């Protein structure tokens, strides 16, 4: 078996070869768009040209078989052109309106689900989980699947006051915009790590391990040629474990997930916001994480019932106040929600103005 001659430093192919002609023609000259339904929108150029986009759900973890099916659909209706989105959906683009309905019919026939456009819930930004990451404290793809099954109507048809962006991170490294999502799930450890001192000296760098700890809980343990952890300071972030294999932190019964809400990325109306911790712990319950899923659905529903049109989750909460968010959702307020990491000072209330 011969392989071709390798090249280096060529970078990715230039994008223009992948653009359909209507895009090349109207590139940078789009005038407006209209959302037709959660699955379809149309962009109209200054030229009058139109391009319809049909967005299709993807589990992101795709077999080559399914990717080939995307290719087949694209060939059949879109002259072979298609794209993926920044949130990992697939988009099929047609410039000839007559192809739109046949395309949708074909997609339906193949079992593809259309949706995610406009004011609803689109694909969940997520991470590797047990599928591929050593650091994972739960599975990300499984959580996403369980969540989206339950929230599917908001993907396909039902609308919300604005977009609700969900994210799942399988550890606090948070590979995704978890920290700025309307509703975010983060897997957490809850126990102080243990250290295999025997292996430490060979496998870890002392300063790196000490520097990895956000709470300065780690100090040298010269007797063991290793480090020790101050249990009173450790917040179980797992970063020491990330940088040093002989440190272990996983615990199947104690690892769990936390839910954060109210983050946002864009600057419309209000500045980008971080997500904030509201549920500190739910047991890790594969394969369908029923409580976590129920909690998320509950928050979405309370938001849907109470927010004004165009208000994102965080904007709604800031309007009504966090104390009202807790009372409306009935979520227990726990010590974990009080910041005692870096920014207690700015997160505590400094006035007698709050709601009962």
């Amino acid at each position: 078996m011969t392989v071709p001659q390798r090249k280096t430093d060529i970078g990715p192919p230039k994008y223009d070869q992948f653009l359909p002609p209507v895009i090349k023609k109207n590139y940078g000259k789009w005038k407006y768009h209209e959302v037709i339904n959660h699955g379809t929108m149309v962009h109209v150029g200054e030229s009058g040209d139109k391009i319809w986009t049909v967005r299709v759900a993807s589990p992101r973890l795709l077999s080559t078989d399914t990717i080939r099916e995307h290719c087949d659909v694209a060939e059949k209706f879109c002259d072979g052109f298609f794209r993926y989105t920044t949130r990992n959906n697939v988009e099929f683009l047609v410039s000839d309106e007559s192809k739109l309905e046949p395309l949708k019919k074909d997609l339906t026939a193949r079992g593809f689900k259309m949706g995610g456009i406009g004011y609803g819930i689109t694909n969940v930004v997520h991470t590797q989980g047990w599928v591929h990451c050593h650091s994972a404290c739960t599975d990300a793809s499984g959580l996403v699947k369980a969540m989206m099954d339950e929230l599917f109507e908001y993907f396909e048809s039902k609308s919300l006051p604005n977009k609700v962006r969900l994210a799942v991170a399988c550890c606090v490294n948070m590979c995704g915009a978890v920290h700025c999502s309307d509703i975010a799930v983060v897997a957490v450890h809850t126990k102080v790590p243990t250290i295999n001192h025997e292996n430490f000296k060979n496998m870890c760098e002392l300063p790196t391990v000490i520097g990895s700890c956000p709470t300065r809980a780690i100090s040298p343990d010269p007797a063991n040629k290793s480090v020790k952890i101050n249990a009173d300071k450790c917040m179980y972030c797992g970063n020491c474990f990330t940088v040093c294999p002989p440190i272990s932190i996983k615990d199947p019964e104690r690892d769990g997930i936390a839910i954060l809400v109210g983050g946002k990325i864009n600057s419309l109306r209000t500045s980008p916001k971080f997500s904030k911790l509201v549920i500190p712990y739910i047991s890790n319950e594969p394969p369908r994480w029923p409580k976590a899923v129920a909690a998320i659905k509950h928050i979405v529903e309370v938001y849907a019932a109470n927010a004004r049109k165009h208000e994102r989750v965080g904007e709604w909460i800031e309007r009504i106040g966090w104390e009202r968010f807790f009372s409306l959702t009935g979520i227990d307020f726990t010590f974990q929600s009080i910041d005692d990491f870096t920014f207690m000072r700015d997160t505590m209330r400094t006035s007698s103005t709050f709601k009962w």
Partner: protein
Amino acid sequence: MKKYNTPLIDELEKGPWPSFVTEMKKAGKHNEMANDAVGHLEKCYSTKVGYWKHGGIVGVLGYGGGVIGRYSELGAEFPGVAHFHTVRINQPSGFFYTSKAMKEICDIWDKYGSGLTNVHGSTGDLVLLGTKTDALEDIFAEYSSRGWDLGGSGSALRTPSCCVGPARCEWSNYDTMDLCYNLTQAYQDEIHRPMFSYKFKIKMSGCACDCVASIARADMSIIGTWKGDILIDQKEVKNYAAKGMDINAEIVNMCPTSCISYDGKEMKINNAECNRCMHCITKMTKALRPSGERGATICIGSKAPIVVGSLLSWVIVPFIKAEAPYTELKELIGKIWEWWDDNAKPRERIGEVIEMKGMRSFLEGIGIAPMAQQIKEPRKDPFMFYTEDDMAAFKAKEAEEKKTGKYKF
């Protein structure tokens, strides 16, 4: 009496605002110390530098505070200010006086001191500016025998202070004047015998206007509030409109919770969503007034910027009854001091210690539950402590949910 040439500070006798230089000179006419203080000040103005030395420890027998020792580096040149200590007299609640009492205060001060005062210092004391060490005991005897005591200084409870409250204000939600008096009396030992890690200030305002600046200037800020509806007198609402108030612009649109509506005739308030900010009430005092249960919000920790940056007080108790004999409040204060004492390094204000040890440690230490009213927003980063008890509680809740089939988030 030496006559100083004071061209620079003379400039400060010009203009409409009352002049402190004129005051100093007035006292200086019949008081050597005040006269030298005038010369001393001119010197500072001419060189643009101060000449007071770091304070020494002076005071009266049995007290560790109440007097700020002050000496000049230029004692030879200005002997009247070689010693120039201040005496802090604990003011009466709300700064009310009778002329009789005040004249007596002045007479004693003229006898022993410079005749100069600050009425009042920013903590609240009636500050007598400038006397000599050997006069201190007499001064104290004269004042105390007439019912006046010293205020706080050093690492002690500082003189508590309050707004005028029920005495001359329609908005006071508790008796600020009485609470201030009561606490001052209850904690005489803590005021006079410094035993804390650093200073501790208590300030009491009757409502969110916070006319004694408690939220910014007191380790413990006690701010009046209520639980109940805002009563509306629609006739008076009409009167405000008739007199030219643009109720929509000035009131409705400025309500932070958007819970007021006004259709040109009737005003409505969605009281459940009101955060009791006082804006509407203060601007339409004839038409609006709180009703229902009265009490106070307790906030902790404010201070000036040294060392960790300035702090505003943080809400710890959203609502507490503030009625004599203030038992609950005093128990709380006791627990706060105990926790502070257990956790502070020297010269650490309570706000600094709370930030260091974490709000949870503090709240648990004083036995207060976490409440959403305490925070502006929850933590962002998922770095947090879980105690074994927390975990047991989470797991128990989940077990319960499994039984009932209903989630409690």
